Structures are given as structure tokens and as C-alpha cells.
């Protein structure tokens, strides 16, 4: 029947992933909204983290990347 464990895993993973992405991106916007170079740099780093999260998403979508042998 229903694999509740799997559902809970999916729910937790989705919450964490979406929460993390939104938090980092929102922080990047917030921090970047300032003329000081330090904050600009911090904002760029945060955007970098977002880019990394998106790349991880692509990694998960493309089977050749996460499952090269087709197992």
C-alpha cells in the first residue's frame, strides 16, 4: 500500500530544498540592495549558492549525470 516513509522523506526533502533556495535567494536580494562593496560581494556569493542549487537540480534531472551506467 502507501509507502508513508517514502512520502515523509519526500516531504522533508522538498521542504528543506525549497526553503533553502528561497532563503538564500531572498538573502542575496536583501544583502545586495546596498552600495557597499562588501555587501555586494556577499550577495554575489549567495547568488553563487543559488546557482549551485540549480546545478544540483539539473544533475538530478539528467540521468546521464547522476546515473551514468543506467542502473
Amino acid at each position, binding site marked *: 500500500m502507501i509507502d508513508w516513509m517514502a512520502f515523509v522523506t519526500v516531504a522533508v526533502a*522538498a521542504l528543506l530544498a525549497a*526553503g533553502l533556495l528561497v532563503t538564500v535567494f531572498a*538573502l542575496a536580494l536583501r544583502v545586495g540592495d546596498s552600495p557597499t562593496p562588501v555587501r555586494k560581494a556577499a550577495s554575489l556569493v549567495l547568488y553563487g549558492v543559488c546557482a549551485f542549487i540549480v546545478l544540483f537540480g539539473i544533475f538530478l534531472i539528467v*540521468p546521464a549525470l547522476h546515473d551514468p551506467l543506467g542502473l
Partner: protein
Amino acid sequence: MDLTLLVVLVIALALIFDFTNGFHDTANAMATPIATGALRPKTAVALAAVLNLVGAFLSTEVAKTISGGLIREGDGGLQITPVMILAGLIGAIVWNLVTWLLGLPSSSSHALFGGLIGAAIVGAWSFGPIDGAVLVSKILIPAVLAPVLAGTVSYLATKIAYGITRKRQRDGFKVGQVFTSSLVSLAHGTNDAQKTMGVITLTLIAAGMQPVGTGPQFWVIVACAIAIAAGTYSGGWRIIRTMGRGITEGIEPAQGFSAEAATTATILASTHLGFALSTTQVASGSVIGTGIGRKGASVRWKTAGRIGLGWLITIPAAGTVGALMAFIAGLVWWGVIVDVVLASAAILTIWLLSRRGTVEAGTFHQPEPTAFVRPKRKKKRSRR
């Protein structure tokens, strides 16, 4: 009935289904970026089409579950014949078009399952081939869980987004939306084109034109990729309107970003951690969640209810059409021809009905018609 002609008909119908699958699901990825003005309508569907095309080539694992999951094969079950696949496909296409006409986002996979189930029931003249427990655990319960989970994730993401940013910073979310919605499109391409490839391959194997146990041939992959991309580019504008505006009014960039992030995260988690969820149901849930999450935004529960009702009747409705088609095909040897004629008539009728009130790219009024997102020049203004 000549087998070659039958196979040709099935392939043609499978590609038509793939096309309807494409335009039915454009909204999942692109409704919110269009609603917030992050992308122009035409740009959005073009981007989605390209990503679907690319996605279709990325994965070569055949979706064998199309026939294996719900319909029992082998001992105590029945042999899936090309005629059943044809009847099932007609059911799926007709239901996809009806829901599109009504502007309802509904799962194309469920329509396909429904059509095949209906055809299988008539083929066996009993409910024996249908695994009721699987139907409940794989389709009915996930249909409730998907929107609830995605809605919760999206609600919390929206709260975070609005909690952290100040009002004047929120336009920046438009840039992020382009990326999150692109991920949804790519994931869609890798999954959904697979289903049609699986159906065509199954048919070729069943007809003895391809060895058992082999994957889709290259021309099948190309044809399916093009069909789903063309469908996506044609852009089911009616469904985009429902998803982008019908469920909750005036989606803001921060909401769009949160909803898309929730959709992407939920779908990727579900495909990789072994709990299959429908993309359409996840995306709809996300839009509802973000509607609840922003102060001052409201959710049109009447529209949401209509969508939920659509999900409930997708399988029985597509199944009824599939069953009817299988019944006609079983009566006389030229029954399949009658099926195809009826299907063509249905497609034409729905298309003519849709001409009464067209919804196209131009129908969408966008808040800020920027060509593409450009970082806004900073305004020299004191912080609020």
C-alpha cells in the same frame, strides 16, 4: 484489420497525445513567470518548448510502467493489444482536449492510464485486470497528497521570501523565476516524452516489428521529442490563464519564485526518493499555497474545487471513452476505422468550440512588459 495500418494509426494517435500532453503541461512551468511578467508569454513557451525538446533526448529509460503498473499482464491478466492501446489513446486525447477547453489543469498521465484501463476492462469483459489496491495507492491518495504537500512547501517558501526581503527588492525574484521554471520544464521533458515513447515501443513490440526487451528506436525518440515540444510551444493558453490568474489573483514575483521553487523541489524529491507525484497536481498545489502565503492575496476556492473535481473524474472519464472505443473496435473488423473517425470528429468539434472564445498569447496583460529580466538600476531612495 491490417496490422501495419493499425500500428501506423496507433503511432499517429500516440504523437497526437504527446502534442496534447505538451500544451496541457506548459502551464505547470510557465504560468507563474507569465503572470508576474518575468517572461513574455511567447518567450516563456519558446523556452519551455526548447527545454522539453532537450529533455526528451536526455533519458532513454523506457517507461514500461505504462502497461505494467495498473494492468495485470500475463497469468490471470490479459495481453495488451495494439487495438487496446489505440482505444486508450483516444480516451486520453479526448479528455485532455475537454479539460483544455475548460481551462482545467489535469494530469495527462492519469488520462492515459484511465484510457488504457477502460480499454483493458472492455478487452477482458471484467474488472479483473485492474489492480484496485494499486489504483488507490498510486493514483487516488497521491492526488490528495501532492497538492497538500506542494501547497505547504510553497506557503512556507512564500512566508520566507516575504519575511526576508523588503518590498522594493522583490522585483529581483523575476530573474530567479526564469531558472526555477526552466528546471520544471526540463524535468517535464525527461519524464513525459518518455511515456509516449514507451507506448509506441510497446506497440511495435506487440506487433512483432521490434524485438522484445529493446528500447525505443531513434526515430521514435525524435518524433516524440518534436511532438511534445511543438505542443508546448503552441502553449495551452487557457490552462496558463487558470494557473496564473484563476486560482489566485495578482501573483507577485516573490510568490512566483516561491511557488516554482516548491514545485521543482517537490517533483525532484518525488522522482528521486520513490514516491511518484503528478507534476500538474504539484504545480497547482504550489500556486494555491503561495496564494495563502501572501497577505492580501486570496485563493479562489471555487476554481480550485473545479480543478480538484476534474482530477477526480479524469480516470473514469478517459476510461469511459477508452472503453467505448475498445467496444466499437471489438464489434466489427472495421471498428478501428470507426474509432479513428469518431476521434477525429471529437478533436474537430472541440477545436471549433474553442474558436468561440480564443485565449492566446496576446490575451495576457503583463504587469511590466520587459523583454527579458534586466537587473533594475538602483534607485537612490532612502530605505523604507
